[in-house]
C-alpha cells in the first residue's frame, strides 16, 4: 500500500511557491494545484520552507553496545523529528564497525526501523586503534556499501596509516573522514585551551592540535590525489587552512556541527558537563570564522555529531564525564538561528549544506536531490518563524544531554517525508 502525500502552500528554498504531490515514494508534481489529489494525506505548509530531506554525515547511534544511550531505532526517530532522511552511523560502537558483519547489522537495523536511511561508517583501523587497516574493502563491498570511513572519536594520527587509508579507498571512490586531534597535544584534555581553561583549571585542548592534523592530511590528500573529509572543524585556523587547500583544488571537504556554530567555551564556567564535547567548544572568534566559512562554502556541510550519553555519564565531575552532545533534533533550528536569521545564508544554501553536499560526499544515491518531478520523495518542511523551547525531557532520543535545554529556538519542523512516507509530523 503506497502512501500519497500532498504538501500544500509551501515555499521552495529558491522562493517559489509550490504544492508537492508524492506518490509511490516519488515526487509526481510540484505545480500549484487547486485541490489535493484523490486519497492523498494533506500537509499544510503555509508559511513553511520545503527543503530536500536532510542528510547527516556524522551520527552516533550507539548500537551495538550502548543501547541504554541510543538505539538505531531511537536515533532514527530523533533524526526524523529533526528533519533528517539519512544518517551516517559512526563506527565507534562495541563491537567496533570495522568489518562487514557489523556494518551490515547496523544497516539492516536501519532498514528495519524504516524512518531514515542508516548508512554505516566503517572504521579506518581495526578496533579504532590506529595501527592496522580495518576490513575496508569488505565493508565497501558489503550490503551496506560503505563509502565513508572514520575512526571518529580517535584521530588516525599515524601519518603512514593515514596515507595508506587515503590511497586504499580511492579504489572504490571512498573518503576518509578524519577526526583531527593530535593525540600527544591533547592528552587528558578537557576543554579549549585559552583564557577560560586557565581560570577553571581544566586541562586545555589547543586549537593547533586540530589544525596540525588538518594541514598534514590536506598535504597527504594533495600528494595522493585522494578524497579527504574533515570532521567537525572548530577553529578559525582550521577554516583558513581549508580555504587555502580549496584554492589549490585539493579534494578536501569539511563539516561543522550546530553546537560549534552557537556555543563557546564560556559555557564551561558552569562546570556543567553537558557542555563537554570533543572537539571542544571554542571562542567567539572561532564561532564567527566557522559561520563565515560555512556561508562561503569553505566548510561544505553541517553535520550533527549527535552523541547521546546516559544521564550518569554527564551528572558528575567534569573530568569524569563523557564527551558529546545531542544534535539531530535541534540542528536545523540552530542553523536557522545562526546562519539564516543572521543573513549569512539563504535557504538554498541551507539545502546545499544539509542535504545535497553531505549526500554527495557520502555517495549516498537517491539523497540530496533537488525537489523536482521524478526525484525521490525525501522532504523536510520547516516553519522558520515559529519558535519552540528545547526541553531535554521531551526529546525523542533515549538520552537527554542537549546543551540547548531551555533555549527558545526559531524554526519548527512541521513534517519529514522519507521515501514518500511521512515519518514525522510536527505540531500545528
Amino acid at each position, binding site marked *: 500500500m503506497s502512501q500519497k502525500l500532498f504538501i500544500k502552500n509551501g515555499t521552495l528554498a529558491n522562493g517559489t511557491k509550490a504544492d508537492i504531490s508524492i506518490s509511490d515514494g516519488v515526487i509526481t508534481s510540484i505545480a500549484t494545484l487547486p485541490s489535493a489529489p484523490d486519497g492523498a494525506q494533506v500537509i499544510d505548509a503555509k508559511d513553511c520552507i520545503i527543503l530536500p530531506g536532510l542528510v547527516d554525515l556524522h551520527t552516533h547511534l550507539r548500537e551495538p553496545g550502548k543501547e541504554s544511550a541510543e538505539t538505531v531505532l531511537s536515533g532514527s526517530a530523533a533524526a526524523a523529528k529533526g528533519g533528517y532522511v539519512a544518517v551516517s552511523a559512526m563506527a565507534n560502537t562495541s563491537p567496533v564497525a570495522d568489518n562487514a558483519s557489523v556494518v551490515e547489522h547496523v544497516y539492516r537495523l536501519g532498514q528495519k526501523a524504516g524512518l531514515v536511511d542508516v548508512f554505516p561508517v566503517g572504521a579506518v583501523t581495526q578496533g579504532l586503534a590506529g595501527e592496522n587497516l580495518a576490513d575496508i574493502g569488505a565493508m565497501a563491498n558489503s550490503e551496506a556499501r560503505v563509502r565513508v570511513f572514520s575512526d571518529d572519536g580517535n584521530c588516525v594520527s599515524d601519518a603512514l596509516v593515514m596515507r595508506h587509508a587515503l590511497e586504499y579507498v580511492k579504489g572504490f571512490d571512498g573518503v576518509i573522514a578524519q577526526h583531527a586531534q593530535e593525540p600527544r597535544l591533547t592528552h587528558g584534555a578537557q576543554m579549549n585551551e585559552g583564557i*577560560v*581553561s586557565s581560570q577553571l*583549571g581544566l586541562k*586545555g585542548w*589547543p586549537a593547533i592540535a586540530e589544525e596540525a592534523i588538518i594541514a598534514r592530511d590536506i598535504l597527504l590528500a594533495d600528494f595522493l590525489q585522494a578524497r579527504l573529509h574533515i570532521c567537525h572543524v572548530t577553529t578559525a585556523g582550521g577554516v583558513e587552512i581549508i580555504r587555502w587547500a580549496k584554492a589549490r583544488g585539493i579534494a578536501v571537504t569539511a563539516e561543522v556541527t550546530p553546537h560549534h556554530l552557537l556555543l563557546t567555551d564560556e559555557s564551561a564556567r558552569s562546570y*556543567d558537563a553537558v557542555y563537554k564535547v570533543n572537539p571542544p567548544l571554542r571562542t567567539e572568534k572561532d564561532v564567527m570564522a566557522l559561520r563565515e566559512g560555512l556561508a562561503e562554502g569553505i566548510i561544505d556541510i553541517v553535520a550533527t555529531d549527535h552523541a547521546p550519553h546516559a544521564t550518569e555519564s554527564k551528572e*558528575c*565531575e*567534569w573530568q569524569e564525564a563523557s564527551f558529546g552532545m545531542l544534535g539531530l533534533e535541534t540542528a536545523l533550528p540552530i542553523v536557522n538561528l545562526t546562519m539564516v536569521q543572521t543573513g549569512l545564508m539563504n535557504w538554498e544554501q541551507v539545502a546545499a549544506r544539509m542535504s545535497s553536499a553531505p549526500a554527495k560526499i557520502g555517495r549516498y544515491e537517491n539523497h540530496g536531490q533537488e525537489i523536482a518531478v521524478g526525484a525521490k520523495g525525501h522532504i523536510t518542511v520547516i516553519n522558520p518563524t515559529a519558535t519552540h523551547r528545547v526541553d531535554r525531557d521531551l526529546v525523542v532520543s533515549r538520552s537527554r544531554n542537549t546543551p540547548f535545554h531551555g533555549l527558545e529556538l526559531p524554526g519548527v519542523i512541521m513534517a519529514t517525508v522519507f521515501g514518500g512516507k511521512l515519518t514525522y509530523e510536527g505540531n500545528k
Partner: protein
Amino acid sequence: MMRHLLSISDLTKSDALSILNTAETLARASDGPMKKLPTLRGRTIVNLFAEDSTRTRISFEAAAKRLSADVINFSAKGSSLSKGESLKDTAQTLQAMGADAVIIRHNASGAAHTLAKGQWMSGSVINAGDGTHEHPSQALLDAFTIRKHCARGNEDLSGLRIAIVGDILHSRVARSNVALLTMLGAQVVLVAPPTLLPIGVASWPAEVSYDFDSVIGEVDAVIMLRIQIERMTEMYLPNAREYSRFFGLDKDRLSTMRTNAIVMHPGPMNRGLEISAESADSARSVIVEQVKNGVSVRMAILYLLLAGTQELEI
C-alpha cells in the same frame, strides 16, 4: 554572607575582610585559656576528602572542633568515592545523615561546584581544593598572614607586592591567591618558566616574570609553590636541578629580599628543591605560622557560613 565557599569569586571584598577580621578575633580567643567555643554545638560537619591531604583535613577538623561542631571524616582510601560511587550518591548519603556543611577536597577541578549546584544536598559546601582550580581557604589564610606581617596599618593589602613562584599552571593555590590578593589591593607577580604558566595567563590580573632574581628584591612576600616531581617526566622541565637553580629560594636569593619581607609556602615543602632548608627555617619564614593561622581562618569561614548572623560570644 553566601551559602557556599567554592571560589574566591564568591566573595566580595567586604566578605573577605570580614573573614579575616573574624579570624583575628577567633585567634585571640584561641590564645586564651578556653580554646573551645560553643558556637556550632550540634552541627555536623563532614570532611569529604577524595584526595589525600592530611594538613588541610586536620586544619578544618581542628577549626570545626574548636567551634564545638561534630566532625565526620570521610576520606578517600576505602571510601565509596574511590570505589566508583558517584559524587551524587555520596552527596545524597551525606544529606541523609544530616550534614550541615561538607568540606570537599577532590582531584577534579569543579568538583565542589558540581556538589553545590547538583541540588543533591541542602548543606553548605566548602571547597578545600578542587583539582587545579581553586583552594580558597588557603588563599584566605595566606592573605591573613600577609596582612598581619606586611600591611602598613591598612585593613587590606593595598600597596603590597607579592610574588607567587613555581608551578602556576597546576596550582589551585595560585589561582585563588591571584584573585584574592588583587581583590584586597595587592600587586601580584607570577614567577615561573613559560611551560608552567597557563596559556591565557595574560588575562589574569597579575604580572608575569620568567626571572626570579629580578623579582625577589622587590616584593613584600614570596609564596613558594610545591613542584611535583612528575613535572620533570612530563617534560615541563628538563630536570629538578635546573628548576632549583632558576626558581628555587636558596640562601643567596633569600639574602636579597627586602628588610621585612616574608617567605611563605602552602606545604608540604620539597626542601632542597623549590626551597632550601636555610630559607624554610630562616627568620623571614612564616611557614609554620601559616598552619596556625589556617585554623583561625577556617574557624572564621565555618562560623560565617554556618552561624551567620549569630553574635560571636567569646
